[in-house]
Each structure stands twice: as C-alpha cells, then as structure tokens.
C-alpha cells in the first residue's frame, strides 16, 4: 500500500507539476535572465551587464518600491483591525447570518476588480453618488476625495478585504472556547484574553491573511491608477511602463525581480510557518 501511495501520488501531481513548470518556473527563469541583460534588448543572447539594477538604484525607482510596500503595509494593518471583529463574529457568534456574509463576500470576488474600483470612482468623485446627492439634498458640497494617497490605501483595503477576512475566520475558529472560558474564569481581563489567548492561538490565520493582503497589495496597480490618478506611481505601474512605453524589457525585468524577491521571501517564510493539512481541515498530519 505504501509503494502504491508513492506511485499514485507522484502520478497525480504530474499534470499540476507540468503546468507549474512550463508556465510558472520557466517564465520566472526567463525574467531573471532578462534582468541582467544590457538596456533595451529584446532577446536573451547578449552579454549580461547588470545595468538595469544600477538604473533601479540611481534613477529613483526605489521610491516607487517604497510607496508600494508602504501602502501595502498600511492597508494590511487597517485590514487586520477592521476584519478582526467581523471574523470573530463569523467564527464564534453568528450562525445563519455568518453564512449569508460569507456568500455575499465571495460573490463580490467574482466581479472584476476593475468594475468595483470604477464603482468607487463613481461613488466618490465630485458629482458622484455621495457628493451629488449631498449637494442636491442639502446644498452642501465638498471637494472630491479622489486622487490622493489615503484613497489608494482605501482601495487596497476594499479590494483585498476577503483575503484577510477568510484566513482570520479560519484562525479564530481554531481557538478553543474552553481556553477563552478558562482564562476568563481565572480572572483575565478582555484585553488579556485578546493578547494572550486569541492572538497566539489564531496565529496561523493571521499569518496567512496578512501575508496574502500584503503581497497582493504590494503588486497591485489598478487601485493607484483608477482611484489615485497620477499622485503616486507604484512599482507595478513602473514595471508596466518599462515594458510598454519604455520598451525597456531588462529594466522592467529587474524591477519585477526586486518585487518577486521580497514577495517570494515573505511567502516562503509564511507558508513554512503553518501546517497546511491542519488549516485545510485534514485529520492526519
């Protein structure tokens, strides 16, 4: 039986393995090789000179990198704070209503991100849903709240809400009620229960949720373009420009590699911390 498992396991992994090999690992290798090519070449048959990396560090691209990671960090923190109470309610308090929320949130995932962000533009712009109605009903008005950094962070929070919420629910569901009860019986305050029982015991969910929202936000582009106008150029935007208008593939590749390295390191660190079998509901470990 053991040998049988080995053989069938390997065979079943094959199709997925082939997909990942030809469409994930190979492209990553290509982009890595491109990133060390001389400027503005379109093939891999040149002598590497690492000039793109020099450009990245001297031409101010680092600013975009910092903006992206800064805004990703901010949105992750905000997401954690606003998702925690809801996740707690869904894991421990709500019953039928929790299922309703789950379905309602999942359905939004199937609506293209563009359309939802465009909806926010319509809602928040001057003459939009909020300002337009406010002016029509009360005569009051305000300048549009679009095209600044906070609204980009708001967009990131909105877009990646489910990616924080669902892992948090999984994490909080792993906290045994007995542990919370015992802590309360022994005289722990609410604060203490939160910091010393809830947080550590739901850590796997927190790690996955924060990681997902940070990583997705760091590589996001639509939020800053649609909601932010041209106030901030994020790294994904710079990468796109380098490939399209700039026609400088090696520069775009070098910028991508920097993003990939940071995100890859964080993901591998996070994925290694959690027991996948346990989170997915498996019984064996």
């Amino acid at each position, binding site marked *: 039986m*053991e040998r049988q498992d080995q053989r069938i396991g390997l*065979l079943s992994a094959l199709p*997925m393995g082939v997909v*990942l090999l030809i469409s994930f690992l190979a492209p990553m290798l290509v982009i890595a090789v491109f990133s060390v090519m001389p400027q503005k070449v379109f093939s891999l048959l040149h002598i590497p000179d690492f000039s793109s990396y020099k450009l990245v560090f001297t031409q101010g691209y680092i600013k975009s990198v910092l903006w992206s990671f800064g805004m990703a960090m901010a949105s992750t923190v905000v997401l954690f704070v606003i998702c925690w109470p809801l996740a707690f309610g869904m894991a421990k308090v709500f019953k039928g209503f929790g299922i309703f929320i789950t379905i309602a949130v999942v*359905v939004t995932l199937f609506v293209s991100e563009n359309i*939802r962000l*465009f909806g926010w533009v319509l809602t928040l712009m001057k003459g939009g849903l909020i300002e337009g109605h406010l002016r029509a009903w009360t005569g009051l008005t305000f300048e549009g709240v679009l095209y600044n950094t906070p609204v980009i962070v708001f967009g990131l929070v909105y877009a990646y809400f489910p990616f924080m919420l669902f892992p948090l629910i999984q994490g909080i569901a792993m906290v045994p009620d007995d542990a919370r009860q015992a802590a309360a019986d022994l005289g722990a305050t609410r604060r203490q229960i939160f910091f010393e029982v809830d947080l550590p015991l739901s850590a796997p969910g927190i790690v996955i949720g924060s990681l997902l929202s940070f990583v997705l936000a760091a*590589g996001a582009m639509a939020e800053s373009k649609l909601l932010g106008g041209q106030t901030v150029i994020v790294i994904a935007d710079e990468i796109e420009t380098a490939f399209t208008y700039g026609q400088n593939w090696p520069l775009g590749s070098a910028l991508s590699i920097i993003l990939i390295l940071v995100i890859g390191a964080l993901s591998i660190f996070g994925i290694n911390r959690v027991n996948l079998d346990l989170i997915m509901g498996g019984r064996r470990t």
Partner: protein
Amino acid sequence: MKMSRSARIALTLYGVLAIFFLYLPIISVGFASVSKARYLTFPIKRYATKWYGKAIESSTVQDLLWTSLSVALLVTVISMVVGFFGALAFARYQWRFRGVFQKLILLPIFFPQAVLGLALLLWFNALGIIPSWKTAVVAHLVWISPIATLIIAIRAYGFDPSLEEAARDMGASTWTVMKEITGPLLWPGVVSAGLFAFLLSWGNFPLSLFTTGADSTLPEWLYAKMVSGYSPLVPSVGILSIVTSIVLLLFGVIVMWLIRARSETLSAR
C-alpha cells in the same frame, strides 16, 4: 463565555455595514448604467436603458464576450482535470515530495498577477509564440488551477481512504478505483472548483493584460476605457458582465444542489 446582547447586536450591525460597503460601488455602477446622459452626474435625472441596447448591438462588445467566454471555458475544463489529480496528490496520498508540492502550489497564488503575466509574455517571446487569447488561457491557468486544486483538496481531506482500500482489496484496478470510488466522491468538489475557475477567469484583468496580444477580454476593455477615452458603454458592459457571473453562479448552485439530492437518494437506497 457568553456575549452580551448589545455586543451581539453591535457585531451584527457591523456585519451589515461591511456588506453595504462591499456592494456600494456595484450599486453606483448599476445607477450609472441606466443614466440617460452621456456625461454622468449624480443624482441621475433621466433614466434610460439605451446603453444596454447599444452595448449588446456593438460588434466590439460581442467579440469581447466571445474572447472572454472562450478563455474562461478552456480554463475551467483544464483546471477541473488538473485540480482533480492535484488535489489527490495534495491531500490524499502520502508520497515523498508531498510537502514540496503543497508549497509549490501556493506560490503562484501569492504572486503579483501583473508580474506573472509579464513573465509569461517574455517566456512566450523567447519561445517565439505570438500572444493571443490562447496564451491568456495558459496565464490564467497558472493562477487558477492551484485555486481549483485547493478547493478539491478540501473535499479530498474529508473522505475516508478505507473506501479505496476496500475496493482495491477486492481486486479493483487503480483505474477502476479512480472511476468508481474516488471520482464520484470528489465530484462535488470538482464542480465547485470548475465554477470558481470560470468566474475567476471571466473577471480576471491583471493576468490578461499582457498575455492576450491583439485580442482583448471584457475586463481589459473596461480598464482601457476607464483609464483613457471613457465610453458611456462602460457601466452597462460592466453590469452585463456581472449579470453573466450571477446567472452562472445560480446555475452552479442548482447543479450542486441536484448532485447532493441525487447522492442522498442513492445512499438512502
């Protein structure tokens, strides 16, 4: 630990508020799509459905629909097959590289999709393949087939391996076991994975952006029009795309429900 009544009510209100926020932008698009004016301002004074008519008649929109549909259907079928076997390797069998496999599957999900798309573009270029909607299928698969695998894996974790062992002990071949035991048991997971795959592919923008070449999918066209050269068709085409998703979702839920009803009558016999 009992929660006080007021805290419970506050939490419920918080949940309602969260849902309201999630749907507010979609409501705005809905209103915008039925506004008669070419240049939209709220509050909307005159309503009209003419933009829907124009959108459906437009040959550009029809082409977009076909491209999006072809990509999504192919992605769905391939993800279901790959995900079925991938889930077995992920959850069911104890084999040597299972741990590595599990982690490798998660990596593409964590990756920025725009960068994945670009890397694929470079790779296709190096291979001498001209990008079209078919290459977009490959791009979508990188991200969607791992998700399909995870969804089916949840189902695979839940089933009792002794069922397969019993069949094997009674002399069934590996193929027969797959067909008669494993397949039917995982089938509900495979259907919901297929549904997810279709919907995620249908709405995906960042992966399509660089990999469709001269072809264009619905979300790509919408984005292009939002960023430059606004067209009053944007809200109505957006709503049409959402309606398609919802109809499909309802259809999928009904299929799932029928499968469950059937398997219950089978086991009751």
